[in-house]
């Protein structure tokens, strides 16, 4: 009996949090998605969303960019994680991979404004090797590059952890049984590190749908992600209803990705 009351005491602040800051906001965003500008309950926002090609194109575009960013991040991170796991002092090296995530994201974006600018280091290098200066900032390329740069540590960490969990004897067994390195990778290492890859994809793809600050600072508003659209509707045009509708779309996209990437729920314990 005593432990029951105790339990209740533990749950009061936490339960209040669940109710007020988890359930209520989700419910409110769904509710608002049915409100038009005059606060009337209607399906208009959804009709606009599905009927006007712009919103659908924007959504597809955002998904496409998130996919590109995720693939680029994965291609760079998997070998890195694998090679890191073979190093001496690997925990220290891993920490050095994580360290840049502790630098504010805005500062990193700001650094790229300097690097990619007309007379910036990147263009000085391009001039040096004879290509000549290019417009780098405010292009799709720079957006993908910077987003990939920012997401790499979040991909490396879960993959690294799953490679660490991999039992070396499986790899030895595979080699002993005559598998080539490629076969070992494809049939043993890759399937066994897939949970890490899934966790990484999950923690890169979902945020990539909503990187509105990068589209503004680096992408020069040429790339519009779901996040940019939501920010635009909430803070600039003040059309909360439509913003919420796009928010609901983003939530649905998130749930679909979560289902695809399985039960791996944690982010590998990384700061954002």
């Amino acid at each position, binding site marked *: 009996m005593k432990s029951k009351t105790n339990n209740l005491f533990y749950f009061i602040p936490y339960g209040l949090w669940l109710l007020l800051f988890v359930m209520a906001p989700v419910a409110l965003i769904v509710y608002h998605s049915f409100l038009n500008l005059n606060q009337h309950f209607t399906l208009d926002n959804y009709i606009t969303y599905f009927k006007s090609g712009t919103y659908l194109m924007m959504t597809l575009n955002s998904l496409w960019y998130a996919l590109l960013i995720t693939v680029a991040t994965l291609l760079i991170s998997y070998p890195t994680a694998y090679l890191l796991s073979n190093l001496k002092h690997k925990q220290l090296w891993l920490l050095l991979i994580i360290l840049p995530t502790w630098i504010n994201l805005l500062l990193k974006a700001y650094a790229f404004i300097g690097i990619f600018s007309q007379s910036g280091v990147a263009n000085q290098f391009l001039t040096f090797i004879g290509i000549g200066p290019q417009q780098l900032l405010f292009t799709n390329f720079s957006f993908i590059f910077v987003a990939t740069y920012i997401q790499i540590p979040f991909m490396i960490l879960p993959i690294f952890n799953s490679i660490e969990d991999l039992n070396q004897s499986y790899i030895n067994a595979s080699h002993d049984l005559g598998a080539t390195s490629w076969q070992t990778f494809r049939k043993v290492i890759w399937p066994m590190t897939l949970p890490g890859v899934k966790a990484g994809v999950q923690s890169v793809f979902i945020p990539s749908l909503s990187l509105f600050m990068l589209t503004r600072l680096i992408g020069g508003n040429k790339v519009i992600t779901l996040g940019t659209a939501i920010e635009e509707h909430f803070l600039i045009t003040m059309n909360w209803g439509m913003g919420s509708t796009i*928010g609901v779309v983003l939530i649905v996209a998130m749930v679909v990705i979560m289902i695809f990437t399985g039960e791996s729920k944690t982010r590998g314990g990384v700061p954002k």
Partner: protein
Amino acid sequence: MTHRFKLSNLYLFLVFAVLYAPILFLIVFSFSQGDSMSHFHGFTFSHYLALLNDTRLIIIVLQTLLIALLSSLIATIIGTLGALGINQTSRPITRNSILSLNNILIVSPDVIIGASFLIFFTALKIPLGFTTVLLSHIAFSIPIVVLMVLPKLRELGTSMVSAASDLGASNGQILSKIILPYITPGILSGFFMALTYSLDDFAVTFFVTGNGFSTLSVEIYSRARQGISLEINALSGILFLFALVLVVGYYFLNQYQQNRRLKRANREEDIL
């Protein structure tokens, strides 16, 4: 074999170079005379001095730290209580559904959290500013604390607690003498994580902050939109040092925990 080894080292070197180049780039130019990030114009501390004289920025830094410390402290208390509560639930269904709810804020994109909190605060007519930013930071830090504390509670198991209660310890004694000391490392990592989430956050704060109140991320965003100012570079130099100190602190905390775990394992082996 040595040839392959060198190639892999080169790859890792490149990854690290790319990860750190923008950060070093920012810091190098923080010492440059002149006002652009394209050519280095001789060494100076003037940007750091300008930073020290920028009262607005210093106040914002203090506000950011205040928000981070307060929110992580409160989130740690609520999150720890929540973890204790979740740990005591007997039915797996209740437990799993609470955990799924708990994880919503971790996997949600920042924009969704920001937008839904904005609706929530507006619905409650709480004026945007310090309070709303603090509440939001507490809200999105709680689930991380829960996730850091819960494994420790599971590790503790029930035998120790039931032994204590068999020996006549009261609930309060069990909590203060057995449970809390054991889960302290988890609580500390939770607090640490909450701190970094709070310091790092931009999107949520951007949505729920009013005109009068600003945190560092929001301030950097608005300054970066106006173009290059080497004062931001000086700021990033200081923040990098700060992050370095935090990371080293976190590393040693982890090492300490691992050592303790090792020692305990050794002791158990000795007993056996």
